[in-house]
């Protein structure tokens, strides 16, 4: 049994070891410039990962921007407002979303979301908000925007189910105390519930971010896969995960492969940090005592 427990530690060590070992070639060739370079030119063996890092960050942040308010709204509704009869089916339905494979989301995005964006949403956005520079360019549908939206749909179940859990741990007497002071229901939620659950909600959001950063298939299918940094959200982009998905099995040349693995290493490190942070926050809340107490 101990052996199996050790296997889990071993897996983590193995992942780190393999990624570090196999990315060594690219690390020696480019050093830190790898993460600042904008050129991705397999033919001349020039590799810079900045466009992918940019794409991953922008698409994930866009997804958070859309998903966070919606998820918190859903969580608040299910814990504080909704009639008891609806609660079960509603959370079941939302969590069902988490069971759909990523490639099916991608399929839906290609055939439904992208046409919807290019025919209706993008023309509208460029007419009304085009002056910001974020919504300019031809409305192809396939874009950073599409990636952000599909990511948002995918991380809403995670964020909202964790937020719901955290809200349910808030003691009932907190709510009753605020109500007894004459607060309306919304004031009770704001002062008595959300304020108490801040750390846990933050943990849920960061966990959602971790998922968004590493999400591969759905994003690859709609982001357009062009390694360029464009200000407009209508322009195609490329993420760290999608460049791996697209080019890894066809990478010829050791430096090329090694560069891809270095992108994988970077992605791994970022998600590890993000997830560890989120876990600590969620643990702190759901255990009912600060994690520092036993450190």
């Amino acid at each position, binding site marked *: 049994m101990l052996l199996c*427990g050790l*296997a889990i530690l071993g897996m983590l060590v*193995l992942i780190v070891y393999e990624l570090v070992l196999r990315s060594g070639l690219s690390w020696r060739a480019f050093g830190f410039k790898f993460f600042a370079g904008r050129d991705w030119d397999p033919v001349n063996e020039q590799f810079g990962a900045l466009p992918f890092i940019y794409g991953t960050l922008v698409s994930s942040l866009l997804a958070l921007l859309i998903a966070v308010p919606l998820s918190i709204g859903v969580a608040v509704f299910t814990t504080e407002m909704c009639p008891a009869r609806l609660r079960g089916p509603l959370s079941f339905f939302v969590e069902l979303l988490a069971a759909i494979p990523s490639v099916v989301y991608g399929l839906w995005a290609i055939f439904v979301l992208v046409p919807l964006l290019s025919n209706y949403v993008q023309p509208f956005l460029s007419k009304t908000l085009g002056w910001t520079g974020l919504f300019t360019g031809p409305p192809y549908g396939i874009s950073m925007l599409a990636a952000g939206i599909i990511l948002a749909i995918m991380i809403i179940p995670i964020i909202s189910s964790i937020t719901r859990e955290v809200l349910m741990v808030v003691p009932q007497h907190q709510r009753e105390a605020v109500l007894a002071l004459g607060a309306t229901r919304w004031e009770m939620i704001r002062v008595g519930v959300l304020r108490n659950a801040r750390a846990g909600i933050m943990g849920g959001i960061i966990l959602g971010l971790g998922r968004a950063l590493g999400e591969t298939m759905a994003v690859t299918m709609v982001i357009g896969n062009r390694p360029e940094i464009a200000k407009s959200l209508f322009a195609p982009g490329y993420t760290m995960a999608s460049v791996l998905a697209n080019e890894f099995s066809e990478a010829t040349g050791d430096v090329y492969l090694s560069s891809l693995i270095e992108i994988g290493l970077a992605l791994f490190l970022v998600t590890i940090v993000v997830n560890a942070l989120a876990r600590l926050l969620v643990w702190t809340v759901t255990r009912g005592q600060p994690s520092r107490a036993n450190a």
Partner: protein
Amino acid sequence: MPDVGKTSALHAVPPIALRRRITDHVMTGVAVLTVILVLAPLFAIFAYLVYRGIGSVNWAFLTQTPKPVGEAGGGMANAIVGSGFILALASILGVPVGVGAGIYLAEFGRNRFGDVIRFTADVLNGVPSIVIGIVAYAIVVLYQKHFSALAGGVALAIMMIPTIARTTEEMLLLVPQALREAAYGLGIPRWRTTLSITLRTATSGVITGIMLAFARVAGETAPLLFTALGNQFWNLKVNEPTAALPLQIYTYGLSPYDDWHRQAWAGAFVLIVLIVTAVSAVRFAVRRGTFGTA
């Protein structure tokens, strides 16, 4: 502050100011709106999947292998079987280790070291599946010098283990302490108690956890891209590239052919139906087999 009558401040409950009441109603409305906004795409995805899926599944799809590029017809039979094959490999590799780790965490890991493993498992759960794919590529494909079903199985197993470990642990902790003490009282050694009493009692929960992990990796595409690779033909050899349903959906979905699009939807539908059936069948069997203990 609302102007409370000066004389009867102690007697009358001050009316809630209009502004506060309006805010309350508006925020309730906003919450309902978010629920609608979240449910709408969910519903759209499901409805569209069923609509496109049912219309596209036919006998040929379930029994034939893919036709050459551009030719209509054919099916994904080899991918369906291939997926099952890779998943079976993953389960053989992943389930024993995962359950073992769960037992360790629940029965022997109530200490600092257990916390470290617990935390590692949670963190591993969040590692992007594509990165797991790279690792499986590095440890299997590079040694074998070619893509294989085994590499895909290893990748999926690495993804299953942390999930299974954590759910197994949770389920074992639900078993009442008194049951263990009763066993110790009869002079049964600890390892025997764990295996025949604790694990036995928690069987249905543990299996549910395994099925959840199974369902999670069954739809995974990213880690298979450069491990199992995909295949146009039948393959049930561990050392050969193998077709998998999610891979086929991905390739067909991005292709320019209408007939392949149709098949991608059929594949997505079959994939979800298979996942749901597998999970509920096992759950049902477990419930039938162990009633009285749970």
